[in-house]
């Protein structure tokens, strides 16, 4: 198996459009939200299209709601397809969660009960998505603050089950993993160990905040040392193609994003170097 050198980039946000455009050389790739592309003006869509001519684009969204116990929203899939085509996107990703029911859309990623019934719904919907788009599809682990009492599977078992049965790849959000492991008391390294082998194609990293009661997924801080450590560990175990730094606040400190991207590049470079050394020094049997 060949070893990928992951492309590193950040999530495109309109508020830091100029900062991103001024620092394109710091990124190998950019992540665009389908929802932003859709909601933007013609002018903003043109900007996205121009950027896509300079850097590869990966596509992400928040409103597909693959976990809703209903048919997948085909209109939304059409929009995703149009965006993939407009931006020549390499991959599309969504969250393993639900955001809406008939008549109400919360825009909030809500956890699914980790049951066979919920897995069945998600698997069916993800298969439907995969059948209707022309790029690889990844499912992301979300951060969550409450657990459904009737859950049968652990978090990682549930993610693995849905991805295994639906054929989706995994988008591992390392900050979500860090937050959940603290809020719900488990070992994040064991979680990484248990992930389906070679299925993590895509990684998210971000920085959140710590309150007296909970770790919160705010996407507005510099990456923590724990996130860097978990990223290093993941890169030893998996072979992802894309690493995206998500930032949704404190945009005045956008230089932190650039710095963190450089640090991620450095981690990749060192990891790659170590892997090469291992190969060279490995005794021949």
């Amino acid at each position, binding site marked *: 198996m060949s070893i990928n050198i992951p492309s590193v980039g950040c999530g495109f946000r309109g508020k830091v459009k100029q900062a991103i455009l001024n620092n394109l050389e710091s990124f190998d790739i950019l992540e665009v939200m389908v929802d932003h592309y859709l909601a933007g003006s013609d002018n903003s869509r043109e900007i996205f299209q121009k950027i896509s001519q300079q850097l590869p684009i990966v596509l992400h969204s928040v409103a597909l709601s693959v976990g809703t*116990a209903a048919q997948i929203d085909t209109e939304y899939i059409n929009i995703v397809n149009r965006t993939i085509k407009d931006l020549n996107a390499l991959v599309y990703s969504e969250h393993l969660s639900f955001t*809406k029911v008939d*008549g109400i859309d*919360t*825009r909030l990623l809500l956890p699914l009960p980790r049951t066979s019934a919920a897995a069945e719904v998600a698997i069916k919907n993800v298969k439907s998505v995969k059948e209707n788009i022309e790029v690889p599809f990844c499912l992301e682990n979300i951060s969550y603050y409450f657990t459904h009492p009737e859950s049968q599977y652990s978090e990682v078992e549930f993610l693995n089950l849905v991805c295994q049965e639906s054929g989706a790849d995994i988008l591992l959000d390392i900050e979500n993993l860090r937050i959940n492991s603290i809020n719900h008391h488990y070992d994040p390294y064991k979680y990484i160990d248990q992930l389906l082998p070679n299925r993590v194609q895509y990684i998210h990293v971000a920085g959140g905040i710590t309150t007296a009661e909970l770790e919160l997924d705010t996407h507005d801080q510099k990456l923590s040392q724990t996130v860097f450590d978990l990223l290093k560990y993941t890169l030893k175990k998996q072979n992802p193609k894309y690493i995206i730094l998500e930032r949704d606040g404190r945009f005045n400190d956008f230089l932190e994003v650039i710095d963190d991207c450089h640090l991620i590049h450095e981690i990749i470079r060192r990891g790659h170097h170590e892997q090469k050394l291992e190969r060279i020094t490995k005794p021949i049997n």
Partner: protein
Amino acid sequence: MSKNLKELQNQLIKYMVATVSGEDKQEYDKLINYNKKRLNLMASMMVGNHVWSLEKILPTTIKYIHPQNDLFQYILKHYFAYRKPSGDTFLLEARNFYEFIMQWNDTILKQAPYLKDILSFELALANVKYAYENHTIRYATRETLYYSLTPLSQLVILNYDIRCFFKKKRVFNLTLKPKKQSLLITCDQLSHQIRIFEVSDSNFSLLKMAQHHFLSYPMNKNNKFIQYLIERKILENRYENLFYW
């Protein structure tokens, strides 16, 4: 599809909407064993997500006024209570914000805190931006471009600079200590952008500009609707002294 799962998802979201809109929470049998404190936390996050969607309509206001302020909470409370987010995300629905507010009756409109002042201000900026982008202010005189925000505040255009000063007598976020704030809005010909500079009350000066941001939004149907509301004089100006020179 699983009927039980569907019912659970329905109850969960309805519970959260009821939490936000202040409706009576029904007895949701499927949520008996849930941690309600955590559910309420996620309900407040749901509001947070929608508040930020309002920046499509109130970009300047939301930038300078804490999103937990009573105007945004009021808008969202009514949004959740009477409209219910559906179909597309609110980010998209916000583009049709005027349709949503159009459904409010006069009583609801009049009770919306500061709405008239804020909509006026946003409209003023939208008008100025629109005029600037369409080059109609290039040769304009001060008189033609004078826009009155309230009797005690104003937007003044001097040559090619657009300057707006206003001070709040009270902050919108009541949890913060009251303090005076000021905004200076200026648009220079070279940048083709409206720049907003925030200066503290003590340092209020044209030359002491603490920070700047860029804005860009077209004269869209929301703005036209805002103008319509203002012309209808349906909004009660309960805080006449909110802005002053």
